[in-house]
């Protein structure tokens, strides 16, 4: 069940502008250059609203950039395709199809597999993600975590070269999120499929990533890349290891610097707040 070792995406100075009704046009991406290493878990992190989802939509082919080139394994990118599949923030399972129908949709609609073959393949994938006894349930009957895993199964059955995950665990509460992270890691370590994982949580990024790409605030481009050489297979104990703390401190510096910019007027609020209270605290004693 291993994806091919390919899936190297090279992006060179990508630009994108949004025209919003009622507001002046917004430069979301400005000469953003990055490469997604094949067979690795590349995590993209940055403050909210810094253009991460726009980049994901462009890579998945749903949106076209104003300028800049993107190649996957050398050949230029054109339109959505099964080589790059996306798992969305809010679940995009079709509510009127059962989990099984959702998963076999891809292969059967492309005519690559007959219904019977697709069902067998789907059962194996569902076992991998632990949903074997939820095959005939409707998405509305599944919990948040299960819906995410079903969506993952729907993508993996098509053996994509690259998986793009747009903040998949955002809606879940923190504890389910941690369990989902461990679960996802096990699946990744089995399939080893090139992945671009987008998140705003720093702990999640370090815990999952082989490479962390930190994005600047608007206009978005890649600021720095941090390699995470924590041992594989990982479990949550790694969260208190020395190496983890080092990476966290380093990443935090960059992120807080970007975060301050992202706040815009919020930022000087944070500064004014701090010295305001210090002044108050001193004159109170």
């Amino acid at each position, binding site marked *: 069940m291993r994806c091919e070792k390919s899936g190297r995406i090279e992006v060179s100075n990508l630009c994108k502008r949004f*025209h919003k*009704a*009622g507001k*002046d*046009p917004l430069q979301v991406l400005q000469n953003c250059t990055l490469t997604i290493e094949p067979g690795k878990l590349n995590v993209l992190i940055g403050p909210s609203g810094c253009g991460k989802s726009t980049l994901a939509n462009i890579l998945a082919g749903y949106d076209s950039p104003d300028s800049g080139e993107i190649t996957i394994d050398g050949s230029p990118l054109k339109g959505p395709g099964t080589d790059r599949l996306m798992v969305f923030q809010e679940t995009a399972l079709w509510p009127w199809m059962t989990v099984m129908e959702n998963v076999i949709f891809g292969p059967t609609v492309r005519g690559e597999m007959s219904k019977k073959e697709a069902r067998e393949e789907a059962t194996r994938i569902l076992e991998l993600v632990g949903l074997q006894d939820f095959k005939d349930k409707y998405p509305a009957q599944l919990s948040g975590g299960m819906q995410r895993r079903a969506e993952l199964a729907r993508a993996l059955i098509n053996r994509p070269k690259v998986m793009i995950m747009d903040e998949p665990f955002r809606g879940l509460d923190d504890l389910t999120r941690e369990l989902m992270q461990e679960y996802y890691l096990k699946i990744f370590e089995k399939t080893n499929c090139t992945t671009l994982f987008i998140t705003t949580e720093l702990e999640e990024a370090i815990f999952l990533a082989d490479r962390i790409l930190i994005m600047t605030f608007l206009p978005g481009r890649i600021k720095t890349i941090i390699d995470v050489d924590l041992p594989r297979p990982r479990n949550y104990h790694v969260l208190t290891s020395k190496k983890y703390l080092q990476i966290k401190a380093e990443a935090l510096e960059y992120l807080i610097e970007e975060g301050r910019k992202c706040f815009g007027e919020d930022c000087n609020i944070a500064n004014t707040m701090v010295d305001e209270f210090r002044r108050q605290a001193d004159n109170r004693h």
Partner: protein
Amino acid sequence: MNIYFVLPLFVILSFIFFIFYRQQKRLAHYSGISTLSQIKKTLTSQRFWLVILGFVLTIGFWYAAVYWLPFDAFHRLPGPDEVVIEWLSRDPYYGISIYTKEYYVHILYSTYRATVSFLLATILGVPFGLLMGWSRRFYEYSFPLVEMIRPIPPLAWVPLSILMLPGVEPAVIFVTFLVAFFVTTLNTLLGVQSIDQAYFRAALCLGASSKEILYDVVIPGSLPYIFTGLQISMGAAWFSLVAGEMIAAQYGLGYLIWQGYSLVKYPTIIIGMVTLGFIGYGSSAVIRYVGKRLMAWREQELGGLGVTYEE
């Protein structure tokens, strides 16, 4: 093609152009280009010409069907040209055009009845809906009653209301009021139920008594639903007003249309229908405008507010 014919046409066309221009100006402001280039962009856009094509096709088919095509059913109907000429002529053959006093008398009667019943429905319906949403006990007593009476089609009340109420005018207004009342009440109730419980608890926390909560949370919170309800109730009011006028009234657009049929004045029928269409559209546009004004805090579009009761 005398002046009396051309002048109103010119007035209507310039009014349409004025709305088109204002809309283009707003669009231009958004995309930050000059109004002129925005107009040029729209004029060359495929969408604009498709809309024009849509109208041309419809009127063309109407004209062809009445005069050329073999369906005899259509031959009894008046053609578009006949209607327009009748509508704009100085002394219309069938007595109704924009120059005849009678035309405006009918319009005034209909609008008067619609407005009275709409206002009555709002004055009675909104508080009734708020009360039903706000106090559990009142809801328990009144909701089953409302649900029992609501399925009875309002127009079935016409014969009974003519008997019960003295004269025709109150009967027609009562029937129209009934429709609008149910729609307004149920949408207001829906509005109160849609308010997130956290707002009530937050107000309680801040020390608001139940009366203050009614003014500060219940009314503003359910305002969006109330306005959707008012828009629908205006549509429903016109809907049943026409029937009431056709059955019982001596004046009004409904009566005008029915009289047009019984006295074989066919173009008048079409004129009556088109006028009804415009006034109906105009009145709900007015409500939408007032709604937007009152609720400054809601930038989103008023429509599409989930389940609404449409009668």
